[in-house]
């Protein structure tokens, strides 16, 4: 990754124009040719430096619910529970973390009642309690990584 790539990544975390030739507009600000910018963004996307290009949707405003859920699973049951939890298509991300509550995943549901049903079902299937941690408030962040 060179300086040009860095400036592209830094710049494009701030926004992307909504117009007929957005890359041309952006390229001008970055002192690049439109085609060069497109090729570089494609290359950064292909090699995994960029995990996404496009709009980031606010799921709550679309009527969906995202809920962070934690579980405390002892080592001897860990792999079995992970497999059971991951088998739900509603489980988006799942991470093992350094805490007694060691399994942390995000559930995507269409309603509060579906969320409750899913939590109850996961508890029945795994035999362990779930700790639902829905967001009560979200604080504004800059959400930018320096490349």
């Amino acid at each position, binding site marked *: 990754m060179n300086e040009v790539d860095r400036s592209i990544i830094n710049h494009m975390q701030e926004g992307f124009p909504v117009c007929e030739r957005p890359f041309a507009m952006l390229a001008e600000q970055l002192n690049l040719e*439109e085609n060069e910018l*497109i090729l570089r963004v494609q290359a950064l996307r292909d090699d995994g430096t960029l995990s996404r290009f496009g709009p980031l*949707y606010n799921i709550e405003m679309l009527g969906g619910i995202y809920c962070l859920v934690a579980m405390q699973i002892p080592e001897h049951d860990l792999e079995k529970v992970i497999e059971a939890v991951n088998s739900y298509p509603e489980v*988006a991300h*799942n991470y093992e973390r350094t805490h007694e509550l060691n399994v942390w995943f995000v559930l995507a549901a269409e309603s509060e009642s579906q969320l409750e049903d899913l939590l109850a079902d996961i508890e029945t299937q795994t035999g362990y309690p779930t700790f639902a941690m829905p967001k009560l408030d979200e604080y504004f*962040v800059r959400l930018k990584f320096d490349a």
Partner: protein
Amino acid sequence: MRNSDNTTLDQIDRRIIEATQAGFPITARPYHVIAEQLELEPKLVIERIGKLLEQGIIRRIGVVPNHYRLGYRANGMTVWDVPDEKINELGNKIGALDFVSHCYHRPRHLPDWPYNLFAMVHGYDKQTTDNYINEIAAILGAANRQHTVLYSTRILKKTGMRIGNTQ
């Protein structure tokens, strides 16, 4: 947090959302390509996407870098126990720090889980991240009754986001 009441999405919006959930095509006229795919006028697609952005249904448009690839290796979920009556004021301060990527108020689960303020902190190494955590602790001061940091040790599942209720 749910705000679906004062935003009305019609069938065209929903089709645009579905077609772009996975991202935009990387091409000179991305909105034209989306329009062609949906058999809509490019002008209409540009207008609708602009409106979705204005309404906050699209938080932003742009790139999301893989932060591991940019060298951010020490990514900690910091969790803090602060008084509920101060949490909004404190949450806004912590969210504004440029090393925090997400900042949320979440419910406690006493006695197991006393923490109500979550902030994801990203540093190139553990030392840097530790310094950031000290910086947060200094800002919270006496309002911080206890805190801890959870590092991820394994990604167990990672799938694309799934939008419900778009039909």
